[in-house]
């Protein structure tokens, strides 16, 4: 393919243009590149980053579930959701730091605050969220301690601080779950950037589905109503937003249906759909609820990995950079670059 790319040029190249909104799944034959080499660079990120996106969503969603359960008087759902939130946020922070080329310099993230950098904004969102989430978890854990500990001054303080801590965490939580979409879309990676309108909705839907799913797994059946609603609502939002997104992306949606990303995408759609159906149909069965919850959580993770891999693939193939830009340039009728 490489030499042909160079050769396959001359008079009639890049004549074809597609009408707006028409989905293009047929490869555009006319396109030139430098020996098929990528134009933009794929991110150097590894599996840590999609894991971080997934865990961030789960943490944010779980804080919301915990706060709701706190207000609604569902203590066991509250406890499990708070613990899930803490575990997830700890895991996501670990993944983020682990992926750095120089992990020891993580603290340099706190040198500046830049609205132009979603990673900077995210760091500050997490810095605000983390302590309140920890307070809520501490309040929860103290409740499990022996009487003497609970009665101590620290124990009493933490016991009282748990609720407000959890509430503040829940107010920051939606930002934790949604900013990660901007982290991806604010790049020159074709598939990510083209998803800029809908990806935040896919991500919060996916976060709600995973949260509800974990709520069904870890919470008791008797308190599972809200978690079930959240799971199903999230799944519907995720699947719907994802469909709209794929239609609006043009040819950059292709990598989402090919190779590793394609398999993950299929798995995500299947698991999320099955999980949502199971959560509704099996609401009287503990086993059905747990299985549905696991499917929803796994589906959410697959969604993040699918989007991640699709973006990486789109950066490796110059077609996804050159063709849309060429079309944009021609539509404008200008030749400046």
């Amino acid at each position, binding site marked *: 393919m490489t030499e042909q790319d160079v050769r396959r040029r001359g008079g009639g190249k890049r004549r074809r243009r597609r009408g707006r909104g028409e989905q293009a799944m047929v490869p555009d034959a006319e396109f030139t590149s430098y020996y098929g080499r990528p*134009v933009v660079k794929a991110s150097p990120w590894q599996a840590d980053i999609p894991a971080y996106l997934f865990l961030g969503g789960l943490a944010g969603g779980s804080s919301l579930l915990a706060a709701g359960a706190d207000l609604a008087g569902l203590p066991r759902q509250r406890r499990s959701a708070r613990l899930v939130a803490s575990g997830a946020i700890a895991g996501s922070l670990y993944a983020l730091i682990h992926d750095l080329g120089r992990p020891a310099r993580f603290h340099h993230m706190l040198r500046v605050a830049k609205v132009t950098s979603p990673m900077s904004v995210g760091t500050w969102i997490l810095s605000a969220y983390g302590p309140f989430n920890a307070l809520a978890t501490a309040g929860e854990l103290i409740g499990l301690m022996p009487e003497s500990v609970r009665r101590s001054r620290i124990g009493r303080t933490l016991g009282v601080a748990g609720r407000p801590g959890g509430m503040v965490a829940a107010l920051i939580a939606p930002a934790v779950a949604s900013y990660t979409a901007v982290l991806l879309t604010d790049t020159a990676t074709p598939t990510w*950037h083209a998803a800029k309108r809908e990806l935040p909705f896919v991500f919060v839907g996916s976060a709600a589905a995973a949260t509800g799913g974990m709520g069904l797994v870890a919470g008791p059946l008797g308190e599972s*109503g*809200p978690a079930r609603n959240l799971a199903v609502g999230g799944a519907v939002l995720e699947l719907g937003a994802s469909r709209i997104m794929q239609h609006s992306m043009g040819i950059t949606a292709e990598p989402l249906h090919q190779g590793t990303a394609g398999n993950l995408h299929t798995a995500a759609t299947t698991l999320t759909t099955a999980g949502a159906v199971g959560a509704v149909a099996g609401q009287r069965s503990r086993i059905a609820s747990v299985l549905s919850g696991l499917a929803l959580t796994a589906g959410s993770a697959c969604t993040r990995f699918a989007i991640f891999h699709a973006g990486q693939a789109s*950066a490796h193939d110059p077609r996804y950079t050159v063709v849309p830009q060429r079309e944009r340039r021609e539509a404008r009728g200008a030749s400046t670059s």
Partner: protein
Amino acid sequence: MSSLGRSFFSPGSGGTGTGPFDPARDAGYTDPPPRKGFFTDTSVCIGCKACEVACKEWNAVPEDGIALTGMSYDNTGGLGGSTWRHVAFIEQELPAPGQGGGRPDTVDLGMPTATLPGADPEHREHADFRWLMESDVCKHCTHAACLDVCPTGALFRTEFGTVVVQDDICNGCGYCVPACPYGVIDRRDGPAGDPAVGLAQKCTLCYDRLSDGMEPACAKACPTQSIQFGDLDELRERAQGRLDMLVESGETTAQLYGHDPGNGVGGTGAFFLLLDEPEVYGLPPDPVVTTKDLPGMWRQAALAAAALLGGAAAAFIGAGGGRR
């Protein structure tokens, strides 16, 4: 340095497409020198790769693998953490100038050659073949996406209007890598023991040399003046003159690339005279600074966050107070 990375959103910049503006002044320098840059005239590049070598020597950039790409004589392949200058070799099955197609004769540069292609009377047939060469480098964009997205402030704007990474601040997060619309910057991945492994690396436009009033190593080493360094305003004028000359003499596909302050990145500090379309050289045909759409992206994220908050509340209301 108070306004690290505010190149796009800063008041007064007016976004892209509003004409010239001074990135150094925008970054907070009160009395900066004239903006510096490169005009790379690929029509005179002979592909000697002296610039690649000079850059490595001056900046102590390690070798990046001695492997053959198998695609052409270009064995470096592209810009990266350990290749800050890269000379692309494009082999085209098109007649070279002077070999038909109504193109003018090439200028014999006096290099040690046997004969010019087709000059040998024994082999008068014209080869339908030409080489294009282009020495690529960081574009030092007016609106630099790499600088915008860097969460540590490791990337900064110099008084010369160029973009530089500070090795001692970069945490290697790699965010600048997918942000650059030209695929320039990358994290250095080896060799083991190199102090910059794990850090983002790219052309500094020889910041150290500029500060001392010298020209960059690559421009200094270029034997054909394909790489011209200087004040950006003057380079743009010179480039226009050279383009007019080439077009007049029949090189109709020649074009300037990156020079226009109205383009998607507000004009580049390093711009090029190309003999074919940008993508032939591996350059993006219509790059746009990724952060241009960021306000809209934040708005979508805020809407999504509100949807999640509302959805969570509804999940409890829908459950009738919780149970079941």
